[in-house]
């Protein structure tokens, strides 16, 4: 013990030894950042303080490079009555009516998932679920937008099955239905797969909880798993540094998830909420206790005092610095009034969850941390949690952008004969990006909780949230890195447009947005330009569509050496549907129903799936965005659902019309006879990726009414065929038996990964 004390770097000791060398650089701090810490404290930081600042001031936790751009989401936020809690909390909260509120957020776990695919992805799910839980909500569904390297690359065989097993292993064990996501392959993600995870939670308005520590004398309770040596420094090391082939082989300790512990944490926390026992609550994610204590104290009114040696440990050799930085999973931190502590601990005991009072709220304005009675941290909490460094990183449009855009995909050689057209359709629907993802999604439980109304491969997931009234929500996530590479401003808007359209296709009204911005190094002006453009594009589009950004996440440094990933903004849209029984599925299931194409088709092949699959080409401009058209299309889709005018709807996105029709036919087990409308080239009709479009299946009895509605509101609606037979026939061109299409579409992923 005496030995311990001799080495303990107390605040007192730090004040007396100003010249002690400190490893600020190894911890990822820049010299001016270190100087600023000394200035804030009026002395050198103790080891524990240095650990806290370094991890909280990392890119991942402080958003120091992205903050100046993210501001726009607030500044340009459209007026919305639906927003109950906005950006800045663990997750945003949206009013969905009938007294219900929904919270949702998407986050990245990219770098950890490359190092250890199973655990990296699993703990990604665990982390986002705790964020949602911390808002006071019951988590009700998850989604997983994923990006991998080339489908046939040997390392993809390592990463993909591990990531998928990890997401399934954790999410299935938590009992959360997985209702959708994305799987995209592109060589640009080879060394930087993107593992984003989204969670949706539901609560009543009065159950909203915030992350703040108020009320002098209130107790701070740490509960959940014991603290171990997991991912120490993981946040700063894993999330903020590029993988450098030259550098020392860093094999940072990875976090291992325990979904069972998290399931107990969820049930225990919800019971605690029901009894109104918490004044403030925060999950422990990146930066562990450093983050939770400083954020709670920073957002609250008083200070906080923590006895760090009371933290239950898994490994008794951990130093106080390590305890502060540990990223052990499945932990939460609550602020509880003294007379409610006993009941709080009782509920934890009921659920076999370890809970310990580790400190209390003080009337000061400092965060003080003690170790065996000696003070090792004494900081203004805001300086750690909210007033980190802010950078105006230089950015510049890369010089290759012009050449890329000039390389027009519309000029690529096109199929010359019907036979060639047919063959290219088959190649398209069998290509890894366009093929069925069932091999992956069949590893996820979509039924648990018994409220899943629609799940993948539908356009959006739809969850019932009230058994009696049939109120529900729909969520979709989308992103197209190829479009964003061609034009990041437009690309981000297209991501929103697609997600918005997907939600509307289910019959739900789009309400709010969450986003995960996956980009390269902010220290590279080109990547920073992409980031700035995408952020501006998304903020503008959200303003125009009236869907505020409620929260999200930024993941930078997604690059290997000089090679950055495609800029990849992933956008999640939440919609509300007042009666889930009127949801619109995607399957063409009724013979004789009429197929209508909604929207305009132009010659738009830049960044298209066709250009990638047939020509391995990326160039030109992405399709044009028309947000007013998107809004009109959404209104029509929602009205059609409400008035029972369509039996099926499927939005058009990558792969164009032929991809959408194939998917809807295969889902319903029925074929289609298509007629190419006058004045349009069959190839463009089938493969163009013009936006603002959807295909719907209309019962004959509804045709007049439906046409009238589209006509009155000015949405082009073209009758393109009929549900019929057991093949897809494009009149005058070719016929493809469903069986052949199914084989092409469904065999690809099993052949690669099973």
């Amino acid at each position, binding site marked *: 013990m005496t030995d311990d004390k001799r080495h303990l770097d107390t605040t007192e000791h730090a004040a007396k030894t100003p010249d002690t060398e400190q490893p600020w650089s190894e911890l990822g701090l820049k010299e001016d950042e270190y100087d600023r810490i000394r200035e804030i404290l009026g002395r050198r930081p103790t080891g524990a303080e240095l650990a806290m600042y370094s991890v909280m001031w990392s890119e991942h936790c402080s958003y120091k490079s992205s903050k100046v751009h993210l501001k726009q989401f607030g500044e340009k936020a459209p007026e919305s009555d639906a927003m109950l809690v906005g950006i800045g909390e663990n997750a945003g909260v949206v009013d969905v009516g009938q007294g219900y509120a929904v919270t949702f957020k998407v986050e990245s776990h990219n770098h950890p998932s490359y190092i250890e695919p199973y655990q990296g992805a699993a703990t990604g799910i665990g982390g986002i679920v705790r964020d949602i839980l911390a808002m006071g909500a019951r988590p009700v569904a998850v989604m997983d937008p994923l990006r991998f390297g080339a489908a046939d690359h040997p390392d993809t065989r390592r990463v993909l099955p591990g990531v998928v097993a990890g997401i399934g292993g954790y999410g299935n064990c938590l009992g959360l239905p997985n209702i959708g996501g994305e799987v995209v392959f592109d060589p640009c993600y080879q060394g930087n797969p993107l593992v984003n995870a989204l969670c949706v939670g539901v609560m009543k308005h009065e159950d909203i909880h915030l992350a703040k520590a108020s009320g002098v004398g209130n107790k701070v309770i740490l509960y959940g798993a014991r603290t*171990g*040596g*997991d991912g120490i420094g993981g946040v700063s090391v894993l999330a903020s540094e590029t993988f450098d082939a030259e550098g020392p082989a860093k094999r940072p300790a990875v976090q291992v998830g325990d979904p069972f512990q998290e399931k107990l944490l969820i049930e225990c926390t919800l019971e605690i909420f029901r009894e109104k026992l918490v004044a403030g609550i925060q999950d422990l994610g990146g930066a562990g206790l450093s983050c939770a204590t400083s954020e709670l104290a920073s957002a609250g009114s008083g200070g906080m005092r923590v006895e760090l040696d009371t933290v239950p440990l898994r490994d008794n050799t951990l130093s106080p610095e390590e305890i502060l930085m540990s990223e052990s999973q499945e932990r939460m931190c609550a602020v509880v009034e003294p007379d409610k502590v006993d009941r709080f601990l009782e509920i934890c005991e009921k659920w076999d969850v370890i809970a310990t009072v580790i400190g209390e709220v003080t009337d000061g304005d400092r965060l003080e941390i003690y170790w065996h009675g000696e003070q090792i941290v004494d900081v203004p909490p805001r300086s750690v949690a909210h007033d980190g460094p802010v950078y105006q990183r230089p950015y510049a449009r890369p010089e290759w952008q012009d050449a890329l855009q000039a390389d027009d995909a519309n000029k690529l050689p096109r199929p010359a004969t019907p036979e060639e057209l047919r063959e290219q359709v088959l190649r398209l629907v069998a290509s890894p990006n366009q093929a069925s993802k069932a091999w992956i999604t069949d590893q996820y439980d979509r039924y648990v909780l018994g409220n899943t109304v629609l799940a993948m491969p539908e356009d959006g997931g739809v969850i019932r949230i009230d058994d009696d009234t049939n109120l529900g929500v729909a969520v979709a996530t989308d992103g197209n890195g190829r479009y964003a590479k061609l034009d990041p401003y437009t690309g981000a808007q297209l991501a929103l447009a697609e997600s918005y359209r997907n939600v509307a296709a289910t019959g739900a009204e789009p309400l709010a947005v969450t986003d995960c911005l996956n980009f390269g190094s902010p220290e590279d002006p080109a990547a920073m330009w992409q980031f700035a453009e995408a952020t501006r594009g998304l903020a503008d589009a959200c303003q125009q569509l009236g869907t505020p950004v409620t929260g999200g996440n930024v993941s930078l440094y997604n690059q290997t050496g000089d090679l950055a990933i495609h800029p990849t903004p992933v956008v999640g849209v939440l919609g509300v549907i007042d009666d889930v029984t009127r949801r619109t599925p995607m399957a063409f299931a009724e013979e004789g129903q009429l197929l209508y194409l909604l929207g305009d088709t132009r010659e738009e092949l830049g960044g298209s799936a066709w250009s990638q699959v047939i020509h391995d080409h990326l160039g030109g401009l992405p399709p044009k965005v028309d947000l007013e058209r998107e809004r009109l299309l959404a209104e029509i889709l929602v009205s059609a659902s409400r008035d029972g005018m369509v039996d099926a709807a499927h939005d058009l996105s990558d792969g164009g019309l032929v991809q959408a029709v194939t998917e809807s036919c295969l889902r319903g087990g029925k074929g289609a006879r298509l007629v190419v409308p006058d004045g349009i080239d069959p190839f463009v009709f089938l493969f163009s990726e013009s936006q603002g479009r959807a295909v719907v299946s209309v019962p004959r009895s509804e045709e007049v009414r439906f046409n009238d509605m589209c006509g009155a509101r000015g949405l082009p609606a073209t009758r393109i065929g009929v549900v019929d037979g057991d093949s897809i026939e494009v009149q005058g061109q070719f016929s493809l038996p469903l069986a052949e299409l199914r084989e092409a579409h469904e065999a690809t992923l099993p052949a690669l990964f099973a």
Partner: protein
Amino acid sequence: MARVVVDVMLKPEILDPQGQAVQRALPRLGFEGIADVRQGKRFELEVEGPVDDAVLARVNELAETFLANTVIEDFTVRVEETATA
């Protein structure tokens, strides 16, 4: 035919939820006095021909690259003397 056994255990600093679950259940089953439980994997490889140093080196490599995930696991390789029951 000889048997080479590869034992794979989570590194000591890595959380072992399975071992912990077993340990927590022991008191309920009336077992006291067990301070820690770790759960790992055991692979039994039946090797054709004699197990010389070259074979052991190759099994080591197999364990390192395939049977264990050395980011989170340690392993040992040994020739089994006694047969398992």
